[in-house]
């Protein structure tokens, strides 16, 4: 089974996002792996462990710092790592999906995993776009995958615990919401060891497209309301919350 995982390196939202002109100031933010990609890497490794094969992780190198993410994926069980030397921190989802699909096209993938979404998917997610560019079907919101022969059975989640089971003839692109099991932990020592020995294949971006969006503005939301903030030490905060709850008959 030839398994490919397409990942996204995205601005971290743990800190404030500075603005430059009409977009995020990409030079001043940290980039991290899209959280849903941790799930899709895990799902890919689980499928490999069940049926055999190889897992290739591929992403666009936005700021020249993708190696760390690829080393982590290798430490978690991926077999090969490929980076597309985009070197454009503002590359939108359409551009990334086009470059990724051009690179994946020659890999004869049986199944391609992508995170179901990313917080910077302003112009949509890369998973469905890779499917469109490669003329493959796509199914997202997936939380369970089982492969038997050339057929995958997946569970897709709707809201409120409802969902549906689908059977799919491979190849296809799967957008992972959550892996069949929670992502495994890779110890730092193993990641370090991988970093010393691993080879990351470099691919130049190929194919041309863009989101076709003209940016008017990028700014934090205009706040219409704000919580009444409770100040003081943790103990004081706790006291005030308990008083508040008691006054409302909630404690």
């Amino acid at each position, binding site marked *: 089974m030839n398994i490919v995982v397409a990942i996204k390196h995205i601005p971290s939202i743990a800190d404030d996002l500075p603005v430059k002109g009409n977009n995020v100031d990409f030079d001043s933010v940290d980039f991290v792996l899209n959280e849903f990609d941790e799930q899709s890497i895990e799902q890919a490794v689980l499928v490999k462990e069940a049926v055999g094969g190889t897992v290739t992780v591929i992403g666009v190198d936005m700021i020249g710092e993708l190696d760390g993410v690829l080393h982590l994926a290798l430490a978690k069980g991926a077999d090969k790592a490929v980076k597309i030397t985009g070197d454009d921190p503002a590359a939108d989802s359409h551009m990334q999906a086009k470059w990724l699909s051009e690179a994946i096209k020659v890999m004869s993938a049986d199944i391609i995993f992508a995170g179901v979404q990313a917080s910077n998917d302003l112009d949509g997610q890369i998973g469905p776009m890779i499917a*469109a560019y490669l003329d493959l079907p796509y199914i997202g919101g997936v939380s369970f995958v089982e492969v038997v022969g050339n057929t995958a059975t997946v569970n897709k989640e709707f809201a409120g615990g409802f969902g549906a089971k689908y059977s799919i003839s491979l190849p296809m692109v799967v957008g992972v919401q959550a892996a069949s099991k929670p992502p495994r932990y890779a110890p730092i020592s193993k990641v370090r060891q991988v970093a010393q020995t691993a080879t990351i294949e470099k691919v130049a971006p190929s194919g041309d497209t863009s989101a076709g969006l003209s940016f008017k503005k990028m700014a934090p939301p205009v706040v219409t309301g704000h919580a009444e903030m409770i100040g003081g030490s943790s103990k004081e905060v706790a006291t005030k919350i308990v008083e508040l709850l008691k006054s409302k008959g909630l404690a």
Partner: protein
Amino acid sequence: MSNDIFVITEHMDGKFSDVSFEMVGKAKELASAFGGQAVAVVVGGGVSANVFASDSTIHVDDENLAQFNPEAYGKVIEALVKEKSPRLVMFGWTATGMDLAAWLSARLDKPCVAYARDLCIENNALIVNSQVYGGKMIAEVAPEGDMAVVAVLAGSFPAEAGQGSTAATTIASPVALDGLKVKFVEAIKPAGGDVDITAQTKLVSIGRGIGSKDNVELAEELAQKLGATVSSSRPVVDAGWLPRTRQVGKSGLKVKPKLYLMLGISGAPEHLEGMKDAELIIAINTDKKASIFNVAHYGATADLFEVAEAMLELL
């Protein structure tokens, strides 16, 4: 090329989702500004489609479309859009719309705006507000060209404006639906056996800030003292720290308790969708700029563990 606005509606078990009506209402406003029609598109069998206030409704009825199938629905919508060339195609940014919007955009080489929470027209051009970076940023963008695809966050517009009784025109599928690679097998119903968080009056809800599975116990203790139940945001469930039955938000459950005490939840739009109507929202988070503080009634920038332990002593 027309100035019509297509709304791709969504339904389950014969019932349309609120976001379908919300989009139809907005589409009517945009269509009149563009000088076109608001067209509700209903894909699927076994549903009465005469429920929208749209200018017209197209109902594509085929037995292969009885249940949502991203491949079949995609083919039908692509064919319809190619034939009718609307100015705008609206999807919900939902479990089904997310499978189709970006896909259609790439198929047709037309722009797509996801996470949309408002649309307006300025100088005959469409402007879309999109809530990106976990709700920390609002992007204002103008899709270029003569057609755009937009995926709209649920709850962005009033649903009432889209409710009506326009008689649908039923058509057969515009494309052959044999030889599909994706096949619907069966529906999955919510897992039983756990508490129903939608029926609880008090919830202590934990997010990524809880840090590890071991720490969930602290939230359980606090909940017990308050006569509450523990719920969570999605990352906690994805990490396997709580069962999926406890998940609040877009891909989880919608709750409206009297108390929603949030420990370490930053307030991504997906989570807010599930709890913003709670009567009393109290949020504890270490990030003073966490977007949850724009929604909560009371907030504190504090260590959730210290606050929870201090509360336990006081209760």
